[in-house]
């Protein structure tokens, strides 16, 4: 199967959906050619579909998201792009008080079929206001769905599902993965939301990881298997809300151990949610405490050396795995 980049996979999904459904359009900053978005995801789309369907907005996150909501209420299927996930804070009222709640407040009369795509994560010396992983905020708001793809294959299928989903979806990409290549089918396909992916099978420990941590964990687990005979099972939830609890719980029931790895800050992070669920649903299967490997409870610093210190690296993940299997 041909290999394409994570960004290309996302672009393919957008393109397929725009071809398929005239109500799908894109709205965000710098989306049109020649830039095609800050990370080049939408390159070529404005040329193909015109600037009516690929719309450049002013720098107005509340307006971008509000506009998407209004258009969705009026029957369209917008895909809004927030340039850096951190900026979504400027439009949080529209995400949290409007998009998430309008369906419920209307007693089910209307729904808000928007997708908000945003690039999160650190690794580019972008410092504190351009490097956060904020998925926990949205996991906590009923009415929102949250997706974090870790591979090009997952990204294309999940975005297609998200665009076709009738509810507001936060589609959180990772800015450091846009160049990652992977096998992706050429045709359109859907990966249903709410389905985790076991990216590596094993017996000794379950590792639940998201986004950029997935490839980091996979590289490490192969090494652990070869050098220490530890066979880890790596579960990528892919969708955080709705969460595929069943796959995670069954995995822990098999391995008896769980390590959760995410790039977001540890405190109040999504890992705590998973740990709590497993702590209840797989309690008698646990042979060791559940460990989280996450970023330190600090803002992200500018210097790459400092940034690397805070974010889970191979060493810390390995330490956690070894401690769990001890």
């Amino acid at each position, binding site marked *: 199967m041909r290999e394409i980049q994570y960004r290309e996979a996302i672009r393919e999904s957008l393109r397929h959906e725009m071809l398929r459904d005239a109500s799908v359009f894109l709205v965000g900053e710098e989306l049109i050619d020649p830039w095609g978005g800050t990370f080049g995801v939408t390159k070529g789309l404005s040329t193909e579909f015109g600037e009516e369907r690929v719309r450049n907005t002013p720098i107005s996150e509340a*307006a971008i998201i*509000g*506009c998407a909501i209004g258009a969705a209420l009026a029957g369209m299927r917008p895909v809004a792009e927030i340039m850096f996930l951190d900026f979504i804070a400027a439009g949080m009222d529209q995400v949290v008080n409007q998009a998430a709640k309008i*369906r419920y407040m209307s007693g089910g009369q*209307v*729904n808000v*079929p928007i997708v908000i795509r945003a690039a999160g994560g650190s690794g580019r010396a972008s410092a504190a206001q351009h490097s956060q992983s904020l998925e926990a905020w949205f996991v906590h708001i009923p009415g929102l769905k949250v997706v974090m793809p870790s591979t090009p294959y997952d990204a294309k299928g999940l975005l297609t599902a998200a665009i076709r989903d009738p509810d507001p979806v936060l589609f959180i990409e990772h800015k450091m993965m846009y160049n990652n290549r992977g096998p992706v089918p050429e045709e359109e396909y859907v990966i249903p939301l709410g389905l985790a992916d076991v990216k590596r099978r094993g017996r000794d420990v379950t590792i639940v990881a998201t986004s950029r941590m997935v490839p980091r964990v996979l590289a490490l687990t192969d090494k652990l298997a070869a050098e220490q005979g530890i066979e880890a099972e790596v579960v990528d939830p892919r969708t955080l809300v709705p969460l595929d609890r069943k796959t995670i719980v069954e995995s822990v029931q098999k391995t008896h151990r769980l390590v959760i790895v995410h790039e977001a800050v540890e405190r109040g992070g999504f890992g705590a949610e998973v740990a709590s669920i497993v702590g209840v649903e797989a309690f008698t299967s646990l042979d060791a405490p559940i460990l989280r490997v996450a970023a330190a409870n600090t803002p992200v610093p500018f210097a790459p050396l400092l940034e690397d210190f805070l974010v889970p690296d191979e060493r810390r993940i390995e330490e956690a795995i070894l401690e769990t299997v001890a």
Partner: protein
Amino acid sequence: MASTEVSDPSPGTPTVDVPGPDMLLRMYETMANIRSFEERLVELFNSGQIGGVLHVCIGEEACAAGVCANLRTNDYLLTSHRGHGHVLAKGASMDRMMAELFARETGLCRARGGSMHIIDRSVGILGANGIVAAGVPIAAGAGLAAQMRGEGQVVVCFLGDGAMNHGAFHEGMNLASVWNLPIVYVCENNLYAQFTPQRLHAKSEDLVKRAVAYDIPGIQADGQDVLAVYEVASRAVERARAGGGPTLIELKTYRYTGHAISNPICAIGRPDEEVDAWKLRDPLRVFERYLIDQGICSADDLAAVRREAAARVDTAVEFAESSPMPAAETALEDVYAAWPEGVPL
């Protein structure tokens, strides 16, 4: 009928005809309905039969009636927390609105939304909003959809003087103006934002001047004169429908009550004489005088309309009171339109 225009860059705007008797009577009926409905809510609230956070618009009826008389069913409406009048004027069922306020299963929003979040999709009401100015960018989105669809739909977005200071107002107006969206933004300036008089929250008395910043037409009018409102709204709606882009209308109006239904009328520095002076220009009284003077209706006709309005409200209350409460478990429904089977919420 006074209307002060600040700027009107589109040449050749047609003069608005005075509406015919049917339309005039319908507008009066709308105002009477709103007045009866809102006054009854105050009684119901004070006697503890309804609760929650409500904001009534007694004194502002002409704004809702005059603007919405220009709208079609498939035009979109967004409004603020003080939206009962607009929503009724747009055609929402009074029975089901009352049931919503009584927290019944038959309410427009199945008792999920309450006063500040009334939505009625069937008549294009995309929602009242509990967050000040949040509707402004959402209206831009609805306007965008209308523009893309190209069927001549128009969006009306009501907001208050307080909302004009919110960041979302600026972002939404800017987007609407730069994309030339078919939206009529109607600012009901009732001189107070919550308890703060307008002179303390904005430097200029004429908020309509902000239209200049977006290079769109801004029109100011007397919000207690329903015909003035009708006229300015008409022009703005036609402009939008014809692809002429957004307009900002500022209506000077007044509410006789406090900010929320339970608040007393007092506000920072609001003199008692002020209320009385405005009551002399009560929108229903003003319009009644006009209708009678012009020979369009008699005083008795108008009294009958008011009686019918009261009766309609009675029916709505009966409907609400006799409606069932929602089953508690329904609180878990409709968070999402689609959710996987067997997965807990």
